[in-house]
């Protein structure tokens, strides 16, 4: 690589500057501020009390566990459904698969609140499903509001299409010829899947998982509107500590805790990304 002139370097810095200043101002600085605040008490003295409270208080612990398993269930179910859907879209030809292929992106474009509202009018006790069941003389109440089932269902509504989009993009990068040649030399469908398709798409599966995990562990709107009051998701708990109890230090500590959980998935993401680059170098 030839040596760059100072003009080029200046150009790089100037081009980067606005975005960097903005992200320092509205992302990095607030994050640091939160971190510092989380180690303070109401008078501003150093303390670990906020963290001790979060990991000993019964309600706080309930909320942490609750958030964990709702998020885990969301990630696993969303990825499983999305993978099957993507496989179907990739390897099936026909009107139905093309139709689904052109329809599955829509949920990405529906505002969160609208989707939740639409779902509520269908599943609530006097909603559409109940009215349909009354046609048959029953009174079916799905019982999907104000409990974890409802949150997970809504999360799936948002995240299956998202994950399917990421996985589909990676599956469509696998050339037909590769799959066909493996089949030609007698590889079984299952072994083609486990030895070729899965390894070639696993990186994007992890990317999808990272984003699904991150956006759901701190989600607010869905659990706020259709989740239970106890135990509650950490996003709602955080908001309540902030707005209702004005406990800024505790809500700061809670932010940091959620961030640490999320960072685990961010690191997994970074790791898969770097690993792939090494693999590319060999070629």
């Amino acid at each position, binding site marked *: 690589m030839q040596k760059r002139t100072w003009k080029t370097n200046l150009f790089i810095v100037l*081009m980067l500057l606005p975005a960097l200043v903005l992200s320092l101002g*509205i992302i990095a600085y607030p994050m640091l*501020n*939160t971190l510092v605040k989380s180690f303070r008490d109401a008078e501003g003295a150093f303390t670990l009390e906020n963290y001790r409270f979060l990991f000993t208080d019964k309600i706080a612990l309930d909320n942490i566990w609750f958030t964990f398993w709702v998020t885990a269930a969301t990630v696993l179910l969303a990825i499983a459904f999305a993978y099957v859907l993507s496989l179907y879209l990739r390897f099936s030809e026909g009107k139905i698969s093309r139709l689904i292929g052109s329809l599955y992106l829509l949920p990405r474009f529906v505002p969160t*609140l609208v989707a939740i509202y*639409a779902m509520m*009018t269908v599943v609530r006790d006097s909603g559409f499903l109940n009215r349909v069941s009354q046609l048959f003389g029953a009174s079916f109440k799905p019982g999907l509001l104000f409990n974890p089932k409802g949150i997970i269902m809504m999360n799936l509504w948002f995240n299956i*299409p998202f994950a399917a989009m*990421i996985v589909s993009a990676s599956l469509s990068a696998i050339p037909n010829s590769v799959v066909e040649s493996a089949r030609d030399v007698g590889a079984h469908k299952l072994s083609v899947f486990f030895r070729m398709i899965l390894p070639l798409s696993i990186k994007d599966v992890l990317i999808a998982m990272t984003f699904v995990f991150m956006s759901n562990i701190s989600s607010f709107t869905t659990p706020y509107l259709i989740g239970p009051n106890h135990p509650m998701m950490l996003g709602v708990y955080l908001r309540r500590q902030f707005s209702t109890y004005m406990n800024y230090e505790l809500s700061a500590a809670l932010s940091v805790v959620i961030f640490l959980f999320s960072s685990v*998935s961010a690191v997994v993401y970074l790791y898969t990304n770097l690993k792939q680059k090494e693999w590319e170098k060999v070629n």
Partner: protein
Amino acid sequence: MSYFFNPKRFYHSLGRRRFWEWLLLVAFILFFYGPLLHMFMLAFADKYEAPGVVPQKFGFQWWEYVLGQRTLVSSITLSFTIAFITTFASMVICLPAAYVLARYEFPGRKAVMFSFLLGNAFPRIGIYTSIGIIFYRIGLMGTFPGVLLIHLLGTMMMMIWLPSGAFRSVPRQQEEAARDVGASPLQTFLHVTLPMAWPGIAVAAMFAFIGSLGESEGTLLVGLPNYRTMPVEMYGVILDYPATAGAVFALILIVPNILLLLLMRRYLGAETISKGYKMG
């Protein structure tokens, strides 16, 4: 009736494979489109009382009602104004960085890319509350610039990663060829690089626009009481208004997104969008 709805008959007339395909299609439509279609029906119902499955009377009564609420109508104008300004500002701020990140190798390049992901790992509510405290201190709470900054936050990762991937996939040889025949760097960028990267940029801009149009959590915290966008009003509508009025308002919220989806259909492949979630 049972002649047509006999699942066994249906199964055998289609064959095993096609039967499962149809089942998948029906489940897919019911789950993802059912609620939206139902809301569409609600929005045009004048009278819809339990246990009716279909509204007793169709009409535009609730449209008149919603469009007669001054606060709701002004929230529509406000939302669009903010979304336009956010998208434009985000492009002006992020695209130069995206270009440099795609075209030049320099120390810390990966870290800069990764920092946008890390910003996403921090809970949004946490960042909003922290920004809220800072805004209080510097007097940005409840102001237009404050709301704008909150909206910009949500657009940054996409507006950097996606266009960066798009710039990266423009072949360098093509740019060099333009330079060889005497084009200036700016001409090369405007006539070669930009047109080729355009689909990625357009998709990122569209996501910034609909992201801003749908943003509720941060605006709720920073914008009140002066700036009530559509989604902020929607919280109140969900809790306080009759279901039919809510459906009308929700439909108004969703229309611009669907128009954009149709308008941009050419560019919107899974491949293009998923570039926004990968650091190049």
